[in-house]
């Protein structure tokens, strides 16, 4: 729109009566050559703008890809951190169970001693019973001897002692049976005592071995938990650092993307420059090419007008920074 307005102004000015001037043969070719140069420069500027746009787009694509990778990495690290937290919780739970087992084992010797003492008391009682069985055997032996003496005395009494002799035989049989039963009881009690003794010895030895083994396992788990805690702490530190780097990268990416907007600002600046040059070239062309009566002073005024208009247009475009007295770069209505 501004180009058209400038051209309209140019033609309005050209329609005014022209003062007489001397013809300037040869100027036309020179001006035409100069305009060719301007056109080449303009084409090169177009190419340069296109190249900067292509580069800016490529940079933005690559920066965005970097940012996306960083975001993906941070996401994976966060997932790994969550997994590690779950693993840590499992270890903590298992360690707690082992600690509970260790506390139980610590109390176990006291319990074993108490149980052993109880069993020992039982063994003492059994020993007492064994003594009683021996007494029963001794009594049986005495009863046997007594029955023999009674039988002898019954024989001496002849037929009068016949019934007594039968009683003596029965007492002897009873004594023999009592002796046999007492012997069985004594043997059984002895075997029970031996079994208790052996059981106590085995239990004591085995519990001591178990205690040592479990204590080792408990210590190993404690060390494992401690190592894992250290590893988790280190891992969390690294994750935190990664997140900080990721945030810095995202902020940097945003800044880079903002700075790349200058490519568009420069492109528009070049376009306005090309428009001004095109206006000037049109004025030169009209004045010198094919014009037998060129008027340099008219051309000078036209170029001065184009320059003033170009500078005025440039003033309307900010560079993103608030200038003294100008409207703010960002404004909400």
């Amino acid at each position: 729109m501004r180009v058209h307005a400038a051209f309209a102004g140019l033609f309005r000015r050209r329609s005014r009566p022209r003062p007489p001037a001397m013809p300037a043969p040869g100027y036309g070719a020179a001006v035409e050559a100069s305009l060719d140069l301007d056109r080449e420069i303009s084409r090169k500027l177009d190419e340069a703008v296109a190249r900067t746009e292509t580069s800016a787009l490529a940079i933005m694509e690559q920066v965005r890809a970097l940012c996306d990778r960083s975001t993906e990495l941070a996401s994976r690290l966060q997932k790994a951190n969550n997994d590690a937290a779950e693993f840590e919780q499992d270890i903590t739970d298992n360690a707690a169970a082992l600690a509970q087992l260790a506390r139980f084992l610590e109390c176990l010797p006291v319990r074993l001693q108490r149980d052993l003492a109880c069993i020992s008391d039982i063994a003492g009682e059994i020993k007492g019973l064994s003594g009683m069985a021996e007494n029963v055997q001794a009594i049986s032996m005495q009863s046997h001897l007594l029955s023999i003496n009674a039988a002898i005395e019954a024989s001496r009494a002849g037929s009068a002692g016949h019934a007594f002799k039968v009683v003596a035989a029965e007492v002897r049989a009873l004594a023999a049976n009592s002796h046999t039963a007492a012997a069985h009881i004594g043997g059984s009690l002895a075997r029970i005592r031996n079994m208790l003794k052996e059981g106590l010895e085995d239990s004591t030895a085995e519990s001591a071995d178990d205690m040592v083994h479990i204590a080792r396992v408990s210590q190993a788990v404690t060390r494992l938990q401690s190592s894992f805690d250290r590893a988790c702490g280190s891992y969390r530190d690294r994750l935190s650092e990664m997140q900080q780097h990721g945030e810095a990268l995202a902020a940097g990416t945003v800044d880079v993307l903002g700075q790349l907007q200058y490519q568009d600002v420069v492109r528009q600046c070049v376009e306005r420059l090309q428009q001004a040059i095109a206006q000037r070239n049109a004025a030169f062309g009209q004045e010198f090419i094919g014009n037998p009566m060129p008027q340099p002073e008219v051309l000078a005024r036209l170029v001065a007008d184009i320059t003033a208009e170009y500078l005025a247009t440039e003033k309307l475009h900010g560079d993103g920074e608030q200038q003294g007295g100008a409207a703010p770069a960002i404004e909400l209505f």
Partner: protein
Amino acid sequence: MAKTILVVDDSGTMVLSLKNNLEIAGFSVLTANDGIKGLERLKTGPKPDLIITDINMPNMGGIEFIGKARATPGFRFTPILVLSTESQQARRDEAKKAGATGWMVKPVAGADLLKIVKQVLPGA
């Protein structure tokens, strides 16, 4: 649900710069390279919660686009921010009269852009 922003600009650099900035910040971004395409975007597809538009564009400029967007059903109160290399007050007044919500001069820093976007998009 991510808020949707429509970016209307004829510069590929500007469109990609804004799109990337806004997407990294969690917004969903639609794009159009002139006012006519911008209006088509308003009538089809997801409804944008915010519009950011350039002023000088081929086919249909930003001021005309803002006026027509305001006349489109459903967009009477949608925030519309202008992002232009121009900074003069007369053009701002023109945009304001057409229905713009605010004005930003190119280039705008990424952090400043997100700040102003969050300001006009409560809850974003």
